[in-house]
């Protein structure tokens, strides 16, 4: 029995990071330091998911005082999807990217990869308003191609020659996600209603100004931080607070 659970949102299964890394290096030639997984988990905690074998008799600490606390549990990891948002989209469109997806050979054809993908896709659309999700797949990987194209509806965008370290070509694929976007208008409407109610109650006419600028950082400069390896990962860009 396999459960699909979030990696680092709620409840957090972040204890499983070493197991996820092992799952990756067991199955795939493209590997990363643990810090690269951490980077994903802490930058886009909503987007990555894990497939774990449910322990016999369930999770022991599911009834502790802290809601959703699964700390210190180490169920077997049989699959994961590691996902991110593209940091510098060339076309300016917010979009997600699947960094890595793998399911253990022993747990194939149970629909695990599909579920992992669907969870991640939805989170990209809801949390980050991603226009689409992109990924790369080896041209020889028929099973994965079938999943992405036939089951999930991805389209081949282009072929990237020699994408993989061993020289194999990749299909660059993508899938539109706009149909799963949250209805911001509805949220804003509810905001307005709430504000009205509050103001009415308090007899306060203060509408409040846009404070969108509050909390913005001062002049930022970019530094390049390398925390991963493998083609398609490249150097990660992170923004650094000015040292002023």
């Amino acid at each position, binding site marked *: 029995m396999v459960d699909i659970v979030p990696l680092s949102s709620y409840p957090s299964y972040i204890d499983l990071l070493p197991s996820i890394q092992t799952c990756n290096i067991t199955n795939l030639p493209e590997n990363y330091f643990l810090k690269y997984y951490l980077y994903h988990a802490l930058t886009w905690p909503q987007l990555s998911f894990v497939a774990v074998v449910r322990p016999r008799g369930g999770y022991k600490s599911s009834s502790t005082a802290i809601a959703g606390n699964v700390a210190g549990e180490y169920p077997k990891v049989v699959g994961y999807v590691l996902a991110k948002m593209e940091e510098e989209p060339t076309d300016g469109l917010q979009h997600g990217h699947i960094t890595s997806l793998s399911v253990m050979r022993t747990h194939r054809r149970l629909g695990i990869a599909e*579920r992992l993908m669907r969870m991640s896709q939805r989170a990209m659309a809801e949390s*980050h308003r991603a226009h689409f999700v992109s990924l790369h797949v080896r041209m020889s990987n028929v099973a994965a191609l079938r999943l992405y194209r036939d089951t999930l509806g991805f389209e081949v965008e282009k072929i990237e020659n020699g994408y993989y370290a061993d020289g194999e070509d990749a299909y660059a694929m993508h899938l539109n996600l706009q149909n799963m976007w949250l209805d911001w208008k509805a949220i804003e409407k509810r905001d307005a209603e709430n504000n009205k109610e509050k103001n009415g109650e308090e007899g306060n006419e203060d509408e409040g100004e846009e404070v969108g600028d509050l909390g913005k950082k001062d002049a930022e400069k970019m530094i390049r931080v390398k925390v991963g390896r493998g083609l398609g990962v490249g150097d990660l860009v992170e923004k650094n607070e000015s040292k002023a």
Partner: protein
Amino acid sequence: MPETLSSKDHSLFRQVVHHFEMKQYKKGIKTADQVLRKNPKHGDTQAMKALNMSQIGQLEEAFALAKTALQNDMKSHITWHVYGLLLRQEKNYEEAIKAYRFALRLEPESQPIQRDLALLQMQMRDYQGYIRSRSAMLQTRPGFRQNWTALAIAHHLAGDLAEAEKVLTTYEDTLKGATPHVADMENSEAILYKNTIIAETGNVERALEHLEAVGYRCTDVLAVMEMKADYLLRLDRKAEAEAAYTALLERNPDNSIYYNGLIKAKAIPESDHKALKALYDEWVEKNPRCDAARRIPLDFLEGEDFKQAADAYMQRMLKKGVPSLFVNIKQLYGNPAKRDMVQELVEGYLSVKATNGSAESNGDNNEFLSCTYYFLAQHYNYHLSRNLPKAMENVEKAIELSPKAVEYQMTKARIWKHYGNPGKAAEEMEKARLLDEKDRHINTKAAKYVLRNNDNEKALELMSKFTRNETVGGTLGDLHEMQCTWFLTEDAEAFLRQKKLGLALKRFHSVNNIFDTWQEDQFDFHGFSLRKGMIRAYVDMVRWEDRLREHPFYTRMAIGAVKAHLLLHDQPDLVHGPMPSGINGLDSTDENQRKKALKKAKKEQQRLEKVESDKRAARKAAAANAKGADGETKKEDSDPLGNTLVQTQDPLKDAMKFLTPLLRSSPQNIEAQCLGFEVYSRQNKHLLAVKCLVAAHSIDPSNPTLHLQLLRFRKSLESLAEPLPEKIDEVVNAEFDKLLPKTQNLEEWNESYLSANKGSVAHVQAGLSGRQFLSPESKPQCEQDLLTTLDSPDITIDEATAALDILNRWGSDKAAYAEKAGKKWPESSVFELN
């Protein structure tokens, strides 16, 4: 007095700082030299030069210069700050904090120093210090939300939930009702963070209220739904909880926790199988492709209901040709009735199909058949339903039908493993690998099986098919860089089995270093996560780092490392490499024989060193300028064979590096406690030794290893070379008396252990060891009794293999035992003595 700079030199100095910030370290050093030519004792310039040097791998020289800088200018915040930064790079955090504090005293307004200090306090979990730093930073720049959030985190982690919440609310109030945009993720996350803090206070009611007021505008929709469902259930608001769990299942029907929540919300009693099954059936209908709703009912259904449901479930999967069926079924085998029913059902499919298989097209039927054979092969290979000849028979039939199926061939290898024949198992796994050479999973398995067969070299060669071998250190270098803990641990264990302790220690240390790196990895996120605003994930990460070494990967490695150190302590000759067994045994008094073996071991060691240095030379020639993945030039390992580790003066002291975190992180692991006893008793640390015994006793009072240790400890207390200090003696005796009273006749105690546990071979072995220990003259009888355990219907091949070690410890001849065991397990190789 510190030198003062001319205005020209001062602007040069500013350039040095600028170069450093732009990461132009070489330019920075050059410019600093320009200043220093005229002002050779200018502390600040020296410090900045040192800082630049530290970034290009000259940490040692940088340190020397930074110290000089400090001597030249003790009153400069720059010299202190740089000194602190270098200490931090060296991971000397405590001293670094002190240096930062000095710097801050000299320049209380400096933001960078304050920030660097705060980051380290966080890393060191100096929460009170962190609270002070964060309060100061907030006061300087209250306009930044992250400064508020940071202070809240500080209070939260320090355990002051109320204060943490107050800080967050204070910031929210500064917004004066202006609602941040929906897309403001920092805001969305801060709201949810505040909600988790409220929930942690235990006031679920208030947490729910807060969530309902603000959750609708948080974009992590799934998290909000999970939190809400959990709160509702805990508040026993059943109808709403039911709706909440239903909504979660509609998003993700593959999560058993949601079904559990839904069932609790609907108050369906655990015993009402009919209602439960109906609930799951409903979800099957909604999600025909979902496995969970089909599979979970098999957990609770019994008898005929179980049989029907299992039949439907398995037939469907087998017809679809799903190879993963068995991994989903085996969890049921804790219940023997279910196990037997599954066996009966699946065996039944074969007989039916054999007679009327012609109805379907041959191809489909073949897939069904091969899947069924494959299922049965795994079934009879599984420890709770093991019948290896039947397993082999079924796997052969499956392979015959689908000779290219990697899984089938893999299972054949596993069967050989359980036959106790690691050589044959590795051979069969290699055949599986050859069926799909581009698949890393099967390559991994093949390497693992080769390691279990103690062939480290071949394993590395297999691994090299998927590593970047141009990395410094070749394949192994890449495996280190990619933190491939499973391989390093298995490699270490294989070396340990072969008593190649230098290499074993080398690998164990590598894994230990990887855990150190993982702990270090969090450092960058103390600042990063505040900027990103993903606070919940950050706090979870901090807490996880605090229990990092509870991970089973660490436990396993640490246990192996402690064993290796113990072995080295007990058999110091192993420093020169493996010696034939028996030479070091208690009985061996033949000094000549020992010398001969030692000479041989030393010669082998020299040969290995030569091989290794040749390899290194070859790699050097091949890649004169090899660089690591991060662009740094990496140095070759100067001690690839682990000689410095194995040549230690004090193996027990070295073992503490592993034992201390092991006992701290996994106190409930009985093997760890028993190993703790072994180390402490050899160090004559009686108090700590007895503490481990007490802990082990509370986990499992009749544990076989513990049993023998209790006897040994009682005996050792009786024959101390010099009496223990009075106070220690008092505590040790008081504690130990609870486990094994002084007045107890040990022989009787041991015999009663034997008769109470005669059903378990492992316990009987321990009892016999106890008897042999208490009265060495009983050895022949003990050997005879040990031989008799081979007639037990329950004895496993692992237990029989363990008996060989026991005979070793007794200094007995193993031939008779090995011969009988070899006959009992004719396919095995582990009883072939050489």
